[in-house]
């Protein structure tokens, strides 16, 4: 994100293509979106990126990364 310099950036640590949560989880969609919008008044300069501290799996597990790597390499 830093390389394309959006005026205000919000980092969501979810697998690519699942920015607002897993399919059909409306409560999570709304939580992530509300967090992103709530950051708006906190930005002070162009190019700033703020971490929304969203975890894909409970406890911060990174187990999703291997699955995603396989998906990205084989589903093209």
């Amino acid at each position: 994100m830093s390389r394309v310099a959006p005026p205000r950036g919000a980092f969501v640590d979810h697998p690519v293509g699942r920015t607002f949560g897993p399919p059909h989880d409306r409560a999570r969609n709304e939580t992530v979106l509300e967090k992103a919008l709530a950051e708006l008044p906190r930005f002070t300069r162009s190019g700033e990126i703020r971490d929304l501290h969203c975890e894909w799996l409970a406890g911060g597990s990174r187990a999703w990364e291997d699955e995603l790597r396989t998906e990205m390499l084989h589903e093209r």
Partner: protein
Amino acid sequence: MAFEYLPIMAEAGAPKPPRVLAAPSNPAWCPIKKPLGRSRVALLSSAALRLANQKPFAPRDDTTYRLVPSDPAAGEIVIDHHSGIGRVPRQDPEIVFPRTALAALAKRGVIGALSPHHVSFMGGLKCHAEIESEIAPAIAGELKRAEVDVALLVPY
């Protein structure tokens, strides 16, 4: 540490050349003029998504955009972007285009109002100069006409 996407995308795209990331020549900055609870909000999506009854995007290098009604009841969303990550978002486009969640925030008063429409275009275009000089200003004009205060881009 955050997941490193670019090396995997380069490997997945081989033997094509790796993608070029271009920063804007003139970084944008608009001050926030209203509290969120009084702001009209639009979504921007680079997923080349549209209503099922709107004209499909061309598979490559399509520089057009679609105005997608913000009412979640307006119709089914179709994702035309060719990216290999599309299997999951096609099951539920709301996870990259939270139209329903934004409408819920409007109903709760978290945002002031919905823009009448959101805007979708094709991400991954290589014509960076045309994006800056023509496509982005055209989309900005649409948002201005809709009196949008806040536009949230969800990259795909």
